[in-house]
């Protein structure tokens, strides 16, 4: 176990980071790089690194490190840098409360309850999984209905199986990864069922996790009922019509003891709500500027708190900016304010950051609403970029160079994805 625990907690910090996962670690490094000195990264688990520890599969770091790493390897590389930079890590600690003046209440296994304050705060709490209630699956409520991430923790961290015969609802990446993982553990994985007509995870996961292991994928099909009083005994699955309602006349039953849910992630913003940040109704995360600063001065947010990412590399990239932003806030060396708002238009669910500036390069992250082939992403009439295909599960990233905007004098850009 790698930790860098402070010998004693300070009363005041330059930057306090809530969450020591990939977002928190990259933000810590960014803050240090930009000149912040007293940095504290808080994590509720016994070691920092977040969800990466249970992601023992490979495929991490292709963009950032230009090599293929496992989740724990990726975590380790960052954690080593955080320790090298003498950033304080406080694990087994829960950031219990915060107010708009950045007074913080910590609950720590080792230090008890502590009240501290910080000049700047970075929200990096990640996301939680959507549960059965979110999609209101009819039927009984037996044991054996759980999220794919919890099953991943049972298998990869604790060495137990969530069941012996498993059906997976939802084709999110965690579900696809777990389908393969459970087959490797000798579990009978009956199939992956997805209510949408398209997959919700990355194409590479469909190939490497389902096709390579002969796990059936049923699109436009959902779980219509759960059976069993104590433990799951059976589930009913059914194809859905155009309004997403199950066609019960075409349903069939599957005997199984477990139903895994991979039906999406929700940004974890309970702390952010306590300080009344402004939120984006689509991402459900805070509204941020190009330094990842929220609607409160000195409060930054990054990673899955802001929007759900499909690759950790982009989390790190974005979180580095948040960390730098916090560091620049401390050292009074902030960039000039943003002067252009980005507005999602045709077939754009959201784009981030919510504002950019004309003075420097920005990376814009966006998601489309529906799949489209041979299309163009238009930023107002200043810039267009051709893409072979887009689909909702894969985030689109675009570099916006300052010279593209040098002749632009408006205060907003509408972003459209249109067929060519």
């Amino acid at each position, binding site marked *: 176990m790698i930790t860098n625990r402070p010998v004693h907690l300070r009363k005041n910090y330059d930057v306090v980071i809530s969450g020591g996962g990939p977002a928190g670690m990259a933000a810590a490094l960014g803050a240090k790089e930009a000149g912040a000195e007293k940095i504290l990264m808080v994590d*509720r688990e016994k070691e920092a690194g977040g969800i990466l520890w249970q992601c023992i599969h490979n495929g991490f770091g292709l963009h950032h490190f230009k090599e293929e790493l496992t989740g724990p390897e990726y975590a380790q590389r960052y954690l080593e840098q955080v320790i090298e930079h003498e950033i304080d890590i406080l694990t*087994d600690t*829960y950031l*219990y409360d915060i107010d708009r003046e950045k007074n913080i*209440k910590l*609950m*720590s*296994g080792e*230090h*008890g*309850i502590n*009240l501290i304050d910080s000049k700047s705060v970075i929200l990096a709490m990640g996301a*939680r*999984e959507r*549960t*059965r*209630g*979110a999609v*209101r699956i*009819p*039927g*009984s*409520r*037996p*044991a054996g209905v*759980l*999220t794919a*991430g*919890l099953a991943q*923790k*049972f298998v990869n961290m*604790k*060495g*137990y*199986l*969530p*069941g*012996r015969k498993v059906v997976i609802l939802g084709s999110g990446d965690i579900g696809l990864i777990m389908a393969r993982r459970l087959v490797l*553990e*000798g579990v009978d994985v009956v199939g992956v069922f997805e209510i949408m007509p398209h997959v919700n995870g990355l194409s590479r996961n469909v190939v490497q996790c389902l096709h390579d292991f002969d796990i059936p994928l049923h699109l436009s099909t959902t779980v*219509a*009922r*759960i059976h069993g*009083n*104590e*433990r799951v005994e059976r589930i009913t699955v059914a194809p859905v019509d155009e309004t997403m*309602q*199950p066609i019960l006349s075409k349903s069939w039953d599957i005997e199984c003891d477990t139903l895994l849910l991979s039906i999406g992630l929700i940004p974890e913003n*309970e702390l952010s*709500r306590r300080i009344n940040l402004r939120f984006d109704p689509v991402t459900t995360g805070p509204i941020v500027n190009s330094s990842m600063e929220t609607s409160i001065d000195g409060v930054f947010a990054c990673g899955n708190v802001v929007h759900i990412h499909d690759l950790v590399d982009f989390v790190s990239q974005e979180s580095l900016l948040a960390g730098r932003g916090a560091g620049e806030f401390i050292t009074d060396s902030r960039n000039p304010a943003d002067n252009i708002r980005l507005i999602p238009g045709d077939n754009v669910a959201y784009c981030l950051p919510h504002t950019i500036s004309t003075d420097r390069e920005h990376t814009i992250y966006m998601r489309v609403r529906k799949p489209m082939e041979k299309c163009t992403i238009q930023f107002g009439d200043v810039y267009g970029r051709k893409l072979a295909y887009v689909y909702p599960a894969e985030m689109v990233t675009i570099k916006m160079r300052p010279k593209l905007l040098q002749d632009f004098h408006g205060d907003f850009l509408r972003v459209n994805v249109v067929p060519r």
Partner: protein
Amino acid sequence: MGQHETYDVTIVGGGVIGCAIARELTRYDLKTALIEKQCEVGFGTSKSNSGIIHAGHHSSSDTLKGPLEWAGNQLWTQLHQELDFGFERVGELMVAWHPEQLETLKHYKEQGEARGVSGLEIWERDRLFKEEPNLNPDIFAALFAPTAGVVNPYEVCFSLIDSARQNGLDLYVSSQVENLSQIDNSWLIKTANKELKTRYVINAAGLHADTIAEMAGLKTYAIKPRKGEEYMLDGRLKGIVKRIIFPCPSGVSKGVLVIPTFNGTIMVGPTAQNIEDKEDLSTSMEGSSTIFSQVKQVVPGINERDCIAEFAGLRAVADGEDFIIGPSAKKGFINVAGIQSPGLTAAPAIAIKVTNILSDEGLLLNPNENFEPTVPKRVIFANLKTEEQIELAAKDPRYSHICCRCEEITEGEVVEAIHMGAETLDGIKFRTRAGMGRCQGGFCTWRCMELISRELDIPITEVTKRGGNSWIICEHDLEPKSGDKP
């Protein structure tokens, strides 16, 4: 023989009614027992109850329900002071959409006032929207009843049974009654692993009261299940209504309600569907769409997307819809059956009524000199002031470990719940709220499993959701099973 325990009174069924009777009887110098088939009390119909203490004006005066509803309502204040459960008289509003429904509101107002229900007021639009700005602006008027309250029904069961046990009750959980027989002036009750001898049997077996009565040789009534589905919404909707919102009544149930639960979470429901299967606790698409379409009418800010959990409960409905409370043709066998709404409200009054029936039936009631009406206060960490939290955590580090982050439940509270009898994840959930929040156990499941395993000294694979075959995890089958060996 003669090995079995002998009791004055044995209650069959540990729902809120059985628990309330149990606790009431421990005021007297009696040897009492309660037998429950589930692994904990309150795990049947009671845990799915809407948790409303009705104002006292709902039920008609020519039923048993009417007077018991109001008598029960008044007893909750003292019960709440003595026992450690959450209770608040948040008040209720019965809303009318049309001027014609004003007559209905007036009828309920008069029905309540005739019985002594205080504070009933008809609110016209100005007052109504000032108090409840998130109601549909098309609502015409409402009947306000300040005496209505909310409780967590499972918490009430735990508090009642903790108090009863502290005052001498013997509790047998995971004990289903298999046979009842009358010997001399006593009853012999057989479960899978126990035999009890008792002078009086109180049949508070809820949905299965008819089966128990039949075992006693009585075929006088049938209990039919009527299903109610409920949907729990995300905590961020807290405060969208401050009072319980009832539609103007029509038909068999009280309609679909918007309930600000004791913890502030909004719950919507229930449906009312007569079914046959007494084990069928399934929710349905029809139930969900009925509830949300009706609720969205009343409070437009509520949406099915805010749902975090759903469940169903089965009301125990007797023929004729009224309560069945009283002695039977079999001496010493007393029925407390068909207790549907407002059964929770009436529970403390029913307990007193049953005690009086026992007295009429010849049971001598001498006061229990050692009766202690209060139970020790539980720690609810999230409700403490910061200074109190700091002090507690310094004294006992288990209170500085968060176990459930959504509801902010500490390890200390979970361990306390285990010591009070919680042996399953549901047991912990209903005693502490751990696992009840928006992540529905995604974070705390493993932590709670570890604590159960540690405190009860059982392998982690033996931890269940709620007893029986509700296992959570299993081992790899690495070794061939013993039967496979040559």
